[in-house]
């Protein structure tokens, strides 16, 4: 029965197989389609829109924008707001360093001494962050307020002068940033330290290393990729943060995030806001490249 059918349509068998093979070759692309679409719609298109907006000129009254290739926008914005850019780098830099200094001992302790309660300790670390970002920051406003639980008490005990204040200073902004981004530093560091093979440490001790030697020559170098990840995940978002500065800072320490937010939402200066965002992005990228050239990528490569 079958044979004549096959003989009549020899092309049937032949034509099906290449199609199957074609489908197989296509499979990886099909599988990456959701991720690709995600990147395209939520990352690439907004990026292009933002970059093109920064070169357009907008009518403030109507909000209509026309492409004018106005490259001067960048220099204009930079000269207007370079102080706020510098503030952002100072505060984010200081907060990142504080986060690294606080996180390292915590991550180290959980990884080495957490025993079978490691997950519990990690959860404890994260619990405060189940509360909304804004509320956490506002609570810091209470804590740091001039007559709040800390400063008020110290002032009543005459340990601090009545004029002393933290709120509305750069210190309060750095404190808020450091607090809000701590998990982004602690978790990658924890993963990096946890990954270190304990037998390698045994080997170091066996080869006459002191605790200090083992830390400086084994643990620290092997944690470099984690430090790099922690740095990126903390510093970059802090750079563009606009909540901490507005809630905890004052008018004299504005960060660039606040300027960008105002440009878009208050002044409706889309071109200016886009230009500032583009500058921030460029600076961050240059920083990352320089950083990874110096120690990041080479160190990361070594552990893959």
């Amino acid at each position, binding site marked *: 029965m079958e044979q004549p059918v096959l003989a009549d349509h020899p092309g049937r068998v032949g034509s099906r197989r290449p199609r199957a093979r074609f489908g197989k070759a296509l499979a990886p692309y099909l599988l990456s389609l959701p991720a690709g679409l995600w990147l395209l719609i939520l990352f690439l298109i907004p990026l292009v829109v933002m970059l093109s907006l920064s070169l357009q000129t907008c009518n403030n009254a109507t909000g209509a924008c026309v492409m004018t290739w106005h490259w001067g926008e960048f220099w204009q914005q930079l000269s207007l707001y370079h102080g706020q850019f510098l503030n952002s780098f100072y505060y984010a830099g200081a907060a990142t360093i504080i986060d690294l200094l606080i996180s390292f001992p915590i991550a180290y302790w959980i990884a080495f001494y957490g025993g079978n309660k490691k997950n519990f300790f990690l959860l404890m670390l994260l619990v405060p962050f189940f509360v909304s970002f804004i509320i956490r920051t506002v609570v810091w406003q209470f804590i740091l307020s001039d007559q709040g639980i800390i400063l008020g008490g110290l002032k009543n005990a005459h340990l601090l002068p009545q004029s002393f204040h933290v709120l509305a200073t750069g210190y309060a902004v750095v404190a808020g940033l450091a607090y809000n981004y701590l998990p982004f530093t602690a978790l990658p560091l924890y993963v990096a330290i946890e990954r270190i093979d304990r*037998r*390698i440490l045994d080997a*170091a001790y066996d*080869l006459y290393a002191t605790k200090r030697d083992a830390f400086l020559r084994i643990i620290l*170098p*092997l944690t470099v990729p984690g430090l790099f990840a922690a740095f990126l995940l903390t510093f970059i978002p802090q750079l563009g943060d606009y909540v901490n500065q507005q809630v905890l800072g004052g008018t004299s320490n504005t960060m660039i995030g606040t300027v960008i937010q105002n440009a878009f939402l208050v002044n409706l200066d889309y071109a200016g806001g886009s230009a500032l965002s583009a500058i921030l992005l460029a600076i961050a990228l240059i920083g990352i490249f320089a950083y990874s050239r110096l120690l990041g990528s080479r160190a990361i490569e070594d*552990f893959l």
Partner: protein
Amino acid sequence: MTETHAASTAATYEQGDPGRASASGLPAIELAGVAKVFHSGSEVVTAVRAMDLQIVEGEFFSLLGPSGCGKTTTMRMIAGFEEPTSGTVYLHGRDVTGVPPNKRDVNMVFQSYALFPHMNVFDNVAFGLHRKGVAKDEIGRRVNEMLDIVGLTGRGQRRPRELSGGQQQRVALARALVNHPRALLLDEPLGALDLKLRQAMQVELKRIQREVGITFVYVTHDQNEALTMSDRIAVMNDGVIEHLASPREIYEHPATRFVAGFIGTSNVFNGTVARMAGDVAVLEMGASERILVPIGDRAVRAGDTLDVTVRPEKMDISTEQPSGDLCALRGTVTEVVYLGTSTNFSVTTSTGADIVVFQQNSATARDLADRGDSIWLSWQPQHSYPIG
């Protein structure tokens, strides 16, 4: 019994404990009543039980036993990574209780090599010398010399992950040996290598040990490895040393049923002593079937039951009943495996014991028996050895 060592040290050491010996008068490593108990959760694991052990300066000493018998734990107590729950470890006569690993004059080659992944081969090997504050040019000289010895000349700039398993093994060895430790502890160092490489490295390790003259304590679960490399072997089972002796002694006269079974294939018979003929026990196993066992200085009387071991290569297979004063048993061949130079017969005896017999293949030995054949087993009485 370790005749050679015991004899030479009986004078230097009180009561002439077996195995205690040294050129300098002190054993390189001594464990006295050492035990280790682990508590993990509600579980209590006794890894090592009241172990007494003396390892001689310059000897190649093996700890042999199945996985989980406490070899690594013993090693880690010598290196200082674990403190004994009870008992004392002495290194060259010095009580090292509480002395951390970095202050002990022994080095370890880890089961997994544990090379430093972020350092090249040279820096890995130089690590210990740097920590000891050796001068820079001397470090360079000694590291390169050691890389020559282990056959890694010119590989100093490679990273560990760029090396094969065998090469990583050599780096681990060089990294420990370059410090001239008074003893080197090796924990299954060849376990991750394939058979060919393992055999080559066994020869290599022996050569290096002879060359550097350092005491080697070698942990393995491979009985062939222990037999071919060691001066003495301690066979461990469940945290206890069941037999401590030379490889030959352990192979030919295993102290316990466990040792007999663990060291190569061994046949064990169980029977009741019918009578004593001088210092030879006679076990009647059936009509004209008997096993003769020289019992040495054991106290054995008629009526006692006895475990007897006989090595597979010591037995002969014949179709006729053997004559003379031989041990003889009747049996049925259940399997025949041809192995080139020898043939491997599985036999069930008339008493129901399943045993193995190796016969060298020669022109006359061919076609001795087939599956299902009834045959006679025979061997010289001196190859019967009582155990237990």
